[in-house]
């Protein structure tokens, strides 16, 4: 049924008819081995024997991600830089080899495919890239760029491809006469439109959009977003829309998944997620974002510290090291503010945010003069001993650093590591307040 004149859809039956999800991810995991090379990863440690060890660092970019994408919907994938959202997008398309897990596209496991079979399925899935500069080959003409995917899948003949390319140019809001131009004659927004036309040329069902508007000016963003929405309707597309900008995600998505350090921490329908966020990270993210309304004075900068390295992510819940609501370890008996104070003290020691001061001042500063009772209290006291300036008056800088790290270790082992947040990986299904979709939140507060 590949007749150009019959419309822009190449084959009408390509829409996925089944009631099942278009795409299903099951435990998808992607690890990267850092640096390659004959001697890479070789460590020389004079203090041990043998002094040379080979230690390859593994970056756990995406870890055990399970989700579904329904036909025709837009799933927003949001997270900060380095959280693994782009890696996930590329792994889904099998541009990267998943380390583990299954990717079912229309019921077929892409993780099992390879070679020619994999190549052929690519006409059903396409991708749009972030950088409008590097996503188009500067040496090719716009027409060639748009026709390349069709050519790769032997679609239509030369004339048919040209006709379709011109039709697509018009669809994405460009002049078909630009068919013979080179990409550098176009602005950023126009290039993203060419990208769209290329992606649509093979009439895919599913498009991964990797930050397609983040490199564009705000006024151009809106133009491109509107065009994408229009095309989605016309072509019956399913989008996985990756972005760091929550506003854009809120505008374009039907459902939203929030990623942190390789894990999906929350997944819900758009209204539910933005109006009723259940994961402390999602909340922090929403509170941090500046609202274009001077009368709205939200809290911001609510998160302390920085994202830990994906080489050695925290156990249990990956957000726990920065979470303002880490659950108190059950091993101790807490009263009132005791756990909150201890947590604040623990993080301050870990990040060394205060200058050495006498023990009594530390107690006032962090505990209002009252240490927690019982075992917890004695551990805190022990830590204060280690760092208080009046307990070890004449030590040099190196010793001091050692004392601080000893105190940090003590506190972390006694408290942070004892919490359920450190010991179990959370995954809970909640009841949605808005809409009737599922709401997943990976936080032990909901146990």
């Amino acid at each position, binding site marked *: 049924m590949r007749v150009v004149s019959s419309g822009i859809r190449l084959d009408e039956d390509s829409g996925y008819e089944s009631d099942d999800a278009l795409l299903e991810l099951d435990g998808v995991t992607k690890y990267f081995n850092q640096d390659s090379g004959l001697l890479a990863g070789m460590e020389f440690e004079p203090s041990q024997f043998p002094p040379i060890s080979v230690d390859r660092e593994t970056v756990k970019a995406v870890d055990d991600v399970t989700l579904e994408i329904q036909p025709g919907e837009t799933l927003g994938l949001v997270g900060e830089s380095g959280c693994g959202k782009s890696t996930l997008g590329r792994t889904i398309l099998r541009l990267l080899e998943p380390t583990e897990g299954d990717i079912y596209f229309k019921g077929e496991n892409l993780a099992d495919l390879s070679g020619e079979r994999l*190549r*052929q399925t690519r006409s059903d899935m396409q*991708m749009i890239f972030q950088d409008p500069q*590097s996503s188009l080959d500067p*040496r*090719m003409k716009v027409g060639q760029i748009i026709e390349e995917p069709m050519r790769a899948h032997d679609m239509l003949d030369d004339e048919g491809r040209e006709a379709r390319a011109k039709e697509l140019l018009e669809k994405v809001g460009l002049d078909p006469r630009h068919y013979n131009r080179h990409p*550098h004659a176009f602005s950023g927004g126009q*290039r993203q439109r060419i990208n769209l036309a290329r992606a649509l040329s093979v009439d895919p069902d599913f498009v991964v959009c990797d930050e397609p508007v983040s490199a564009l000016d705000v006024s151009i963003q809106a133009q491109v977003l509107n065009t994408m929405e229009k095309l989605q309707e016309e072509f019956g597309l399913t989008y996985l829309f990756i972005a760091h900008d929550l506003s854009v995600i809120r505008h374009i998505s039907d459902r939203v998944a929030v990623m942190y350090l390789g894990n999906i921490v929350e997944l819900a329908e758009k209204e539910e997620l933005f109006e009723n966020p259940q994961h402390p990270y999602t909340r922090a993210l929403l509170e941090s974002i500046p609202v274009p309304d001077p009368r709205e004075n939200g809290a911001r900068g609510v998160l302390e510290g920085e994202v830990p390295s994906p080489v050695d992510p925290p156990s249990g819940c990956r957000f726990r090291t920065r979470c303002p609501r880490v659950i108190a370890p059950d091993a101790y008996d807490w009263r009132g503010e005791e756990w909150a104070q201890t947590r604040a003290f623990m993080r301050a020691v870990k990040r060394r945010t205060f200058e050495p001061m006498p023990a009594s001042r530390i107690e006032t500063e962090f505990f209002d003069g009252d240490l927690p009772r019982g075992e917890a209290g004695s551990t805190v006291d022990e830590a204060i001993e280690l760092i208080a300036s009046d307990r070890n008056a004449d030590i040099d800088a190196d010793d001091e650093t050692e004392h601080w790290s000893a105190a940090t270790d003590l506190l972390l082992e006694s408290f942070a590591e004892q919490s359920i947040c450190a010991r179990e990986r959370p995954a809970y299904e909640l009841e949605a307040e808005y809409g009737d979709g599922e709401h997943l939140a990976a936080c032990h507060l909901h146990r």
Partner: protein
Amino acid sequence: MAVGESQLGSDTESAVDEGDVEARVGWRYTLAQIKQDTTARWGLYVVAFVITVATYAIVDSNLSLLTFGRLPDYAFAQALPIFDHPTRIPPPGEGTQHMPPYFPLAEQSWNPLPAGGTIEHPLGTDHTGRDYFTRIVYGTQVSVFVGIVSTFIGLSIGTIIGAVAGYYGGKTDDILMRVVEMIYSIPPLILIIVFTVFVGGTSIWYAVIGVGITFVPIFARIIRSRVLSIREMDYIEAARASGVKDRNIIMRHVVPNSFAPVLVYATLQIGVTILVVAGLSFLGYGAQPPTPDWGQMLNISHGYMHSNLWLSIWPGLAIMITIMGFNLLGDGLQDALDPRIDD
């Protein structure tokens, strides 16, 4: 608007002009740039001139430029270098007397050689009475021939190694680049001499091959790094995501986009090659007499420094101008293609 970009384009969306960074490729663009760039234009003139002279010397090996007539045969002797035969290094004892690679600087018992300045011998004659000007002219072909052919050898082998290493990465890359580094670690001149003497024989052919192989590492490295940076480009990933076959990605995207900068390097490398081969001939391991070759002429004239110092000047000048032409052309191309240094 390329200028002032640093300030004007410091906002989030880079100005459209920055797209030119990648657009600075393509033949038509390159030629337009050469026309605009004074450096490149002069380079082109010199190179064109040198190549014309070389071609002329090959086409009509019996004509002198200035006398408009036939010169006695001995003026250029068996001139074409391409047809000389590999000669083994003479055996010990005999060799040093017969043809020393260099002449120690000492007063020769020759009468002062003709200084030139006449219509017949504008640059005088050498110690055997051959017209120096004619020999300089004929020397062009050796240099240009050697420069271009050995650069081509280095370029082709280097491209294959570099492209394979860069595109496939991992262990392949590791092993190939390690081998390349090994070859690279032996100083080129040394490697070439060892190669010509032990593997081939002292002949311009072996020198050409030796020089070519020696420069493989340089090209392999350049191509590899270029391929590596192109591999990172989104358009490669886009092609992969569209299901374009590997072979087509390499042929349609990687190769065309690596080629322009490599061309610049090749141009510059021709200059380097001529330099090295001149050194080789000067030591006596390049072109062999009676072939007119600048390096070899310097070798001989070195011994007659006190008789006619100009004999040591002309071949050197010829080498310098030729290399300068290729360098100018390469520099001009580089300036035109590299947006960072935008004079």
